[in-house]
């Protein structure tokens, strides 16, 4: 056999290395304008959550003479029932909502993915134990649990909120990741890796994980938005004795103080809702790019 192989022009030898992850990410983001908008929205809210609260005093000022004021230079989104600026409340409230949601989502993804892969890859006793735990988690009604927990726990810190949301939320993901792992397990390349003596850690981290990464990324979206809805919902219902300011609290107070009946308070009520929508929208747009970054096949389209 001769080793000479003729390459058609498109497969001509190239010495170009693969682009770095940063380059791939940049290309994917700039391919569609929507993705850039998504990233900008997310960056905007993230910086709002990090730096925003520094711009305002810890206790926002009350002004009895300026209730439900229309937008002005001092208060671009008007004021609330106490005369506090709505924009100030949105900004200072973002940290709690977003950090709790991010924490919950990371917790869900990390635990869910780990449990799912380990369970689906090792099978046997490991699988049995993990799946029983997962089933247990899945049977816990998350929202009512939070209401019950809130009677003994104040949820003043976003960490507590994030952990509880994460703890109750990973079951579904673990099951889904497990079934994905089960089908990957039967694929030839996993068998080949085993036959070549590659370690289980390698197979899980390098062979299986990259293949379910796009799926996990999609779940990141669902987890973040799910966590935001859950916490905002809790505060809105007012079942949690709130100390901190956040978007859910704003909605609760807006309703509690008759915002429904005064057209002047429209901005006060709509602003937190709009923020939640914008964050969701930003995540959706960004994830479109994430799928391409993680899937080499889409990258070249």
């Amino acid at each position, binding site marked *: 056999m001769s080793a000479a192989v*003729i*390459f*058609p*022009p*498109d497969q001509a030898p190239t010495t170009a290395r693969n682009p770095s992850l940063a380059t791939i990410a940049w290309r994917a983001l700039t391919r569609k304008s929507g993705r850039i908008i998504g990233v900008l929205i997310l960056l905007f809210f993230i910086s709002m959550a990090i730096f925003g609260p520094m711009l305002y005093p810890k206790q926002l000022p009350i002004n009895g003479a300026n209730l439900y004021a229309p937008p002005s230079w001092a208060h671009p989104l008007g004021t609330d029932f106490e005369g506090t600026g709505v924009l100030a409340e949105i900004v200072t409230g973002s940290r709690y909502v977003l950090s709790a949601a991010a924490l919950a989502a990371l917790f869900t993804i990390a635990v869910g993915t780990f449990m799912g892969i380990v369970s689906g890859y090792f099978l046997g006793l490991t699988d049995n134990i993990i799946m029983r735990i997962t089933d247990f988690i899945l049977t816990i009604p998350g929202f009512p649990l939070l209401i019950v927990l809130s009677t003994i726990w104040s949820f003043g810190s976003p960490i507590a909120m994030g952990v509880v949301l994460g703890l109750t939320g990973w079951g579904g993901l673990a099951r889904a990741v497990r079934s994905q792992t089960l089908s990957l397990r039967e694929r030839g390349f996993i068998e080949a890796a085993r036959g070549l003596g590659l370690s289980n850690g390698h197979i899980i981290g390098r062979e299986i994980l990259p293949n379910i990464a796009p799926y996990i990324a999609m779940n990141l979206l669902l987890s973040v938005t799910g966590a935001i809805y859950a916490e905002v919902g809790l505060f809105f219902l007012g079942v949690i004795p709130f100390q901190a300011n956040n978007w859910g609290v704003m909605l609760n107070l807006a309703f509690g103080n008759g915002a429904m009946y005064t057209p002047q308070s429209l901005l006060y009520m709509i602003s937190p809702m709009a923020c939640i929508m914008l964050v969701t929208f930003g995540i959706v747009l960004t994830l479109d790019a994430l799928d391409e970054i993680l899937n080499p096949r889409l990258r070249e389209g």
Partner: protein
Amino acid sequence: MGSVAVEPAQASALDRDVACRVRGLTVTYKVDNRELSALRDVDLDIRQGQITAVIGESGSGKSTLALALMNAVSKPGRIAAGKVTYRDLGEVTAMDSERLRRARGRSLSMVFQASQNSLNPLTRVGAQLLDLARSHDMRDPRAVLREAAALAERMSLDADRVLTSYQHQLSGGMRQRVGIIFGLVLKPQVLLLDEPTTALDVLSQSSVLEIVRSIQRERQLTTVLITHDMGVVAELADRVVVLYAGRVVEEAPTTELIRHPRHPYTRALIQAIPRLTGDPSLARPLEGQPPSLAAIPTTGCVFRGRCPHRMEVCETSTPGISQVSDTDHRYACHWEGAAND
């Protein structure tokens, strides 16, 4: 035998022995805002009552040709130029979608590769046959079922078992035969077989080929066989059309083509077949890969990248059609050696 250059045959009223005439067929796919040709200027006559094989590697455009013969090329592809005319149906490239739908499955029927699961996994075979009959307004759908049962018996299948089975209950060879039953049950005028034996083992393959051969002979059915396997061509086809990178590079009666291939590609193709006779070490692998759609040269010969006889002229000029004198053996090559056996 010498060769003479000929003009490509002109499209005219179809001769008695031509069931389908393809002229100047060009199919393009739109990729990244570029129109890439999967088929380019293809001329082809499909003879009435014969088996015409189209042989080519992956990416040669043979599957695109099968779709184009039914005017079923779908986006992002389109028939950019050319005509496909059937003697009994007229020009399918000019038909509206409703007439096309009626023609497909009824007058022109296509049998897919068994591994492509063209059957609905959730419905029994018999029910799918009834659906097929109804969608073509057959007056007596039951008669279609009886015809199917008769065909099944012909193929040494247990008709009752097959018709009441789901797809997953059938083996690969049985599934392929069921596919052929679907193709034949409405008594089409032209049958297209797309890789009918790929993914079958040799025993299933030989019995499927035997079935196709005997039914074709019995009904004098005009058949087009799309394949990458010269062995299957040799067993079934009367004529062969060799497709490479979207162009017809050679065309001849089967035994003539296998015995006296002219085009360097056809020669290499035949040499690369492992055989049961002769010295196995004389077989020569076909080097290189067929070009991808984006890399097919637009000027010159499409095969030059892998050709052992490439010359300067192959870069610049697309070879015209030469005909081996007094035969219907045609090929497209600049190399003088192609004229000799």
